[in-house]
C-alpha cells in the first residue's frame, strides 16, 4: 500500500488544495468527531467542525471500522476491504471522451466546465423537468456510500461516493406505466473533451438501465467523492454509480435522463456488439470474449483476487434477475 500512496497528486480547477480534507482525516472523520465530541462535550462539537488539523488523532486508534452495505462508517466497505486512496481514485480513470490512456483524463480535465450544468429529465414521465446539479443535491441528497467499482477490464477499486439514490429523482418526475427503461445521455463537448475528436466511436456516450434496476436502492447519482466535489475525471458534476455492474454502466457527466419503452442501444453495445451486452452485470462465470472475468486486480494490490457474483451485491440485486439466463443476457 505505501507504494501507491506516493503517486503524484493532481490539483483541480474547482478544488482549492487548502479546502481538501487530508485523506487520513477523511478516513477517520467519524472517530475524530466522536473523540472530539467526547472531549469537549456536545456543545463543543459545533466548534470542532471548523477545526483545521486533527491529523494527530488519526494515528491514535488504527482500528478499521466496517460499514454496512453502501454506508460510509470508516476505512472499509461492508466486506472489510480497504478504501482506495484519493490519488488512486482520481488518477486512474477510463474516460474515453478525454483519452483512452487512464492517467490522461486527470490531466486533460482542467479545461472542462462543469458549471452551469443542467440535467434534463423527461421522456415517459408525468412531470418532466430540468434540474441544476445544486437543486438535485438540495432536493434528494447528499448521502455517503462506499461502493466497490469493478471495471470490465478486470481491475477494481473501493470508493466513498456522495450522492443521492436515483430512485428519488425518478419518483419525483413520476414515470408513466409505459416507461420500462432509463436512458442516460452524457456530455458531448468536442472542444473540451479531446478524445471525442479521435473518431471511431458513436458519441455521445449513452447508457441505460431497466427501470427496476434504476429503482434499486443501490443505484446512486453521484456528485462527490471522499467528501469533496466530484473531480472532472470521475464524472463531474453528475454521474451514476451502479456497483453491481461493470464500471462502464456508470455513465459520467450526465446531461439528460429519459424514461423510454424499450431497451437502449448503449455506446458500448454499438462499439463492440459481440463484446458488450445491455446488462453488464459483474459475473465471474461469464467471460469477456477477450479475457476471463473470474479474477480482478484491486488497485493497490499485486495478486489478483476472485471476482464476486454481482460484485458482492447479490443480496440486494439478484432478485432483479430471477429466472433470467445471465449467460445469455450478459
Amino acid at each position, binding site marked *: 500500500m505505501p507504494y501507491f500512496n506516493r*503517486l503524484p497528486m493532481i490539483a483541480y480547477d474547482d478544488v482549492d488544495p487548502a479546502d481538501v480534507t487530508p485523506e487520513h482525516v477523511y478516513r477517520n472523520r467519524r472517530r475524530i468527531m466522536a473523540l472530539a465530541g467526547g472531549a469537549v462535550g456536545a456543545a463543543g462539537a459545533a466548534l470542532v467542525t471548523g477545526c483545521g488539523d486533527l491529523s494527530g488523532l488519526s494515528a491514535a486508534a488504527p482500528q478499521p471500522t466496517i460499514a454496512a452495505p453502501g454506508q460510509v462508517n470508516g476505512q472499509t466497505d461492508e466486506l472489510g476491504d480497504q478504501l482506495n486512496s484519493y490519488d488512486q481514485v482520481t*488518477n486512474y480513470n477510463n474516460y474515453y471522451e478525454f483519452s483512452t490512456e487512464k492517467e490522461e483524463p486527470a490531466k486533460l480535465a482542467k479545461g472542462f466546465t462543469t458549471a452551469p450544468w443542467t440535467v434534463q429529465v423527461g421522456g415517459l414521465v408525468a412531470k418532466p423537468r430540468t434540474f441544476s446539479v445544486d437543486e438535485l443535491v438540495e432536493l434528494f441528497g447528499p448521502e455517503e456510500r462506499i461502493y466497490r467499482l469493478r471495471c470490465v477490464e478486470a481491475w477494481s477499486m473501493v470508493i466513498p461516493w456522495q450522492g443521492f439514490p436515483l430512485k428519488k429523482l425518478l419518483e419525483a418526475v413520476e414515470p408513466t406505466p409505459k416507461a420500462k427503461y432509463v436512458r442516460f445521455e452524457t456530455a458531448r463537448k468536442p472542444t473540451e473533451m479531446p478524445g471525442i475528436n479521435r473518431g*471511431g466511436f458513436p458519441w455521445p456516450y449513452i447508457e441505460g438501465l431497466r427501470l427496476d434496476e434504476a429503482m434499486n436502492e443501490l443505484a446512486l447519482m453521484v456528485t462527490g467523492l471522499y467528501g469533496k466535489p466530484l473531480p472532472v475525471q470521475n464524472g463531474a458534476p453528475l454521474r451514476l454509480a451502479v456497483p453491481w455492474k461493470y464500471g462502464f454502466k456508470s455513465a459520467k457527466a450526465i446531461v439528460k435522463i429519459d424514461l423510454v419503452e424499450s431497451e437502449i442501444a448503449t455506446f458500448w453495445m454499438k462499439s463492440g456488439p459481440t463484446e458488450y451486452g445491455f446488462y453488464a452485470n459483474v459475473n465471474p462465470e461469464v467471460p469477456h470474449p477477450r479475457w476471463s472475468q473470474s479474477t480482478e486486480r484491486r488497485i493497490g494490490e499485486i495478486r489478483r483476487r476472485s471476482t464476486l457474483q454481482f460484485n458482492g451485491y447479490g443480496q440486494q440485486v439478484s432478485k432483479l434477475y430471477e429466472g433470467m439466463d445471465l449467460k445469455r443476457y450478459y
Partner: protein
Amino acid sequence: MAVHVGSLIPLARLVWDGYTRHLTANPIQALTQRTGYPALVLLALTLACTPLNTVLGLRWTVPPRRTLGLYAFFYACLHVLLFTTDYFFLVDEGQRWAVLSQQLVEKNYIVAGLAAFVMLVPLAITSTKGWQRRLGRRWRWLHRALYLAAPLAVTHFLWNAKGGADRNEPLVFGAVLAGLLLLRLPPVRRAAYRWRAQSTARARTLVLE
C-alpha cells in the same frame, strides 16, 4: 552500439518509471503492455532490414538484424512471463489452473500472441553463427517463420484493442508489416532491383553528359 542503446531505451524507461512510481495505479498491467509494445516495434524493425537493403540499397541495415530480433525476443519473454505469473499467483490459489487455462487457451488474442512467441523461441536459439552453419540452407527456411510470427503478433495486438479508434495503432502496424512482407515477394523484389539499376544508370549518364 546504437542498436543496443536504442533497444534498451524502453527497458530503461520502465526501470526509471518504476523507480519514480510512474507505472500508473495498476503497475503490473502497465509493465505487461509496455514490454509487449517494444517487442512489436523491434519485430517490425527486424523485418525492415532486408527490404531497406534490397530496395533502397541501405547495406548498413543488414548487420543489426540479428540483434534487433533478439531484443524483440527479449521483450516478448518479459511480456509472456509477466502475463503468466500474473494469472498464476492468484489470491485464490485453487483457481489458478482454471483461470490460467481459460486465459491461455480460450482467448483468441492470447492464442495468437502465444503462437507468435512459441515460434520465436527456435529462431532465437538458432540465431547464432554456429547454428547458421550447421543448418545451412534449412536455416533460411526456418527463419522465414518470422513472416508468420510477426503477423500473428500484430493480430494479437489488434484483437486486444477495444474497438473504434483503439484499433488504429494495430492497423498501422499491420499495414507497415504487410508492406515489409510484400517487398520480399520475388517479383516485387526484382522490380525494385530493376528500378534501382535504372535510376543509378540514369544518374551515371547524367554525370557523364
